[in-house]
């Protein structure tokens, strides 16, 4: 008899809960979203009768895709799909005749298989009921719609612009800050980095609302301007306001990874640069900056990704004129989750591609350290 395999508590065993967690909460929703993005549900049914084709011709063109119990019709609904439209054939016990229910281009046709009779009211009720249960079919319509629809493209490009500008400003502020921090003495450095991290402990919505009270029409900045006799500025509901708050919110995510790579740079490498005749600026440009690229790229990813999908900030600071793709997805998702899913899949692919590009470019210098925090 074979010995029962013993469970051994190895180090890998500790990762199992996480793997299970990942499957349940990451992989499953991901699969769902991808599935939704490639499907649609037939909606806006109206009923008409197919007079042109005989039921045999219709049936010949159909592929069986599955069936479902239908209690209201007290029978089995069988689903067919011909590439364009969905057909449900329902064998009813109530009536001796069998009706075909044909969905074409989002519309339903009911066919009396035997007699070509018109439908009775009773069946119409049943058809309405059927709509709720059925009608999922595969399509790339959602994606086509995104790229052919000027509105969603516009929102998308606007979010790209806002996220890009926020990332650029974060980098412009973050790199010098991280550099100065890394040069500080250990004690001051700790104090200062806490000051940078402190805002992260405040709820992010609260922080955003705090900014709103600052830049509102009757807000603090305008009050001050007013008291000095300067004209009030219209800051709210502009892209500038959205970018400002995004930079404020995401700056720590830029500073930290850069700072982490900077403090890991071997001091003697920098000295070697001075030794070989490079002054401080040239050393910064030729040695420190290239060696900080892993940190910069993870900083860029960590600001760009949340910036492009963020929707609370643009909603609070930007109003409807500055709706970002995150906001758009949220809005669309409520009414049309298939289109919404496709939008989020597009964003996701874009993110992955850009991350791949960024990290692939300096993949061979991984051992310098840095990377994510």
């Amino acid at each position, binding site marked *: 008899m074979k010995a029962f395999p013993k469970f051994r508590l190895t180090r890998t065993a500790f990762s199992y809960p996480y793997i299970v967690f990942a499957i349940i909460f990451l992989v499953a929703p991901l699969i769902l979203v991808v599935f939704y993005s490639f499907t649609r549900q037939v909606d806006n049914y109206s009923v008409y009768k197919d007079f042109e084709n005989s039921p045999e011709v219709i049936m010949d063109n159909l592929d069986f895709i599955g069936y479902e119990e239908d209690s209201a019709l007290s029978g089995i609904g069988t689903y067919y799909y011909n590439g364009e439209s969905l057909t449900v054939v329902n064998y009813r016990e109530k009536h001796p005749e069998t009706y075909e229910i044909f969905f074409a281009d989002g519309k339903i046709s009911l066919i009396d298989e035997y007699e070509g009779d018109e439908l009775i009211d009773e069946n119409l009720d049943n058809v309405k009921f059927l709509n709720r249960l059925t009608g999922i079919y595969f399509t790339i319509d959602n994606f086509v719609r995104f790229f052919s629809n000027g509105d969603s493209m516009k929102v998308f490009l606007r979010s790209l612009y806002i996220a890009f500008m926020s990332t650029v400003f974060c980098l412009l502020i973050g790199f010098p800050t991280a550099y100065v921090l890394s040069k500080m003495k250990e004690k001051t450095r700790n104090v200062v980095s806490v000051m940078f991290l402190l805002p992260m402990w405040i709820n992010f919505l609260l922080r955003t609302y705090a900014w709103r009270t600052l830049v509102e029409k009757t807000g603090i900045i305008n009050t001050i301007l007013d008291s000095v006799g300067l004209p009030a500025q219209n800051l709210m509901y502009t892209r500038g306001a959205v970018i400002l708050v995004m930079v404020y919110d995401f700056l720590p995510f830029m500073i930290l990874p850069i700072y982490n790579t900077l403090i890991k740079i*071997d001091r*003697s*490498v920098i*000295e*070697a*640069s*001075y*030794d*070989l*005749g*490079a*002054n401080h600026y*040239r050393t910064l440009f*030729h*040695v420190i900056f*290239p*060696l900080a*690229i892993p940190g910069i790229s993870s900083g860029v990813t960590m600001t760009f990704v949340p910036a492009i999908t963020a929707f609370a900030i643009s909603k609070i600071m930007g109003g409807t004129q500055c709706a970002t793709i995150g906001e758009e997805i949220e809005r669309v998702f409520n009414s049309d989750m298939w289109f919404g899913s496709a939008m989020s899949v597009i964003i996701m692919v874009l993110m992955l591609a850009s991350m791949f590009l960024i990290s692939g470019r300096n993949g*061979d*210098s991984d*051992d*310098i350290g840095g990377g994510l925090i």
Partner: protein
Amino acid sequence: MAESIIRLENISVALGGEQILKDLNLNINDKEFVTLLGPSGCGKTTTLRIIGGFQRQDSGNVFFADEIINDLPPYKRNVNTVFQKYALFPHLNVFGNIAYGLKMQNVPKQVIEERVGEMLALVNLRGFEHRNIQSLSGGQQQRVAIARALVNNPHVLLLDEPLGALDLKLRKEMQIELKNIQVKTGITFIYVTHDQEEALTMSDTVVVMKGGEIQQIGTPQDIYNEPKNAFVADFIGESNILPGVMIEDYRVMICGILFECVDKGFDNNEKVGIVVRPEDIEIKPEKEGFLRGVVRSCVFKGVHYEMTVEQINYPYTWLVHSTDAAQIGDTVGMCFYPNDIHVMKGEDIDYSVFSAVPKDEAEETEE
């Protein structure tokens, strides 16, 4: 007299509340191969960093060709460094590393390529231009570091234990190569090591340091043959160090026997330290030696046998290198000649730490 290229004048440095260099004075002549030798932590790297401009001294002056360069930043000094752990640029390939110094001086591209080619030939790395730094062995990285530092044609090259990470065979090869490079280029080398053999084989001048102070400066022969104090004697090769009394010029009393020697200039009857190198002692039959002792151990070391001989009537155990083996337990005679006796000022020598240890301690350690 050769002209001075680097001069340190009364240099003192404290780091972290600790005095690292104490009133250091050092003159280095042009085209010389100078080695700073001393145990780990004695301040060799700090001395180099002061010359390179990476460390500011608390007091004292640094001269370059008789000009004070205290305030000159490293990138303006005509000095280049081979760093202790190479410190190559990890984001550049071999070519990029070597070309860096020239690029910083805005040398035209064509000249850079030429010079890098020359440097690669000098360090035997032709064809390695496009190799990644991480893909090189320790010895190859070392060569890149040397080429990178030499490409700027510095007046002075500072080398901080450049061979420390290499295995013995490679180290020996590189010692010869480095010496050749120094002769070929005529660049002043200031070389740091804690390996006395390396220092003796490569240098024109050896500077022995201890605890932030210079112990002795001299040619390798001087340092070896005429150690100024017990520390130098012990640090440079193995030694038997024991107390003696200088009766008068050229006469010294060791273990109750009057020896002739080549030293003079001490007070009559001054207490001194005596250094006798293990290889200078001859093992003779019992009757023929000046000193008698019992062989306690005899280990074959390749070229010679290393023996410890416990002296009869005196609490010393002598270290002897001899080409002939002796039986353990035999009583033998030991003799040495006036040339082999090195006398040094020695009021406060702690003899217990040296090779000629008192008897009881030697026994303890043997168990």
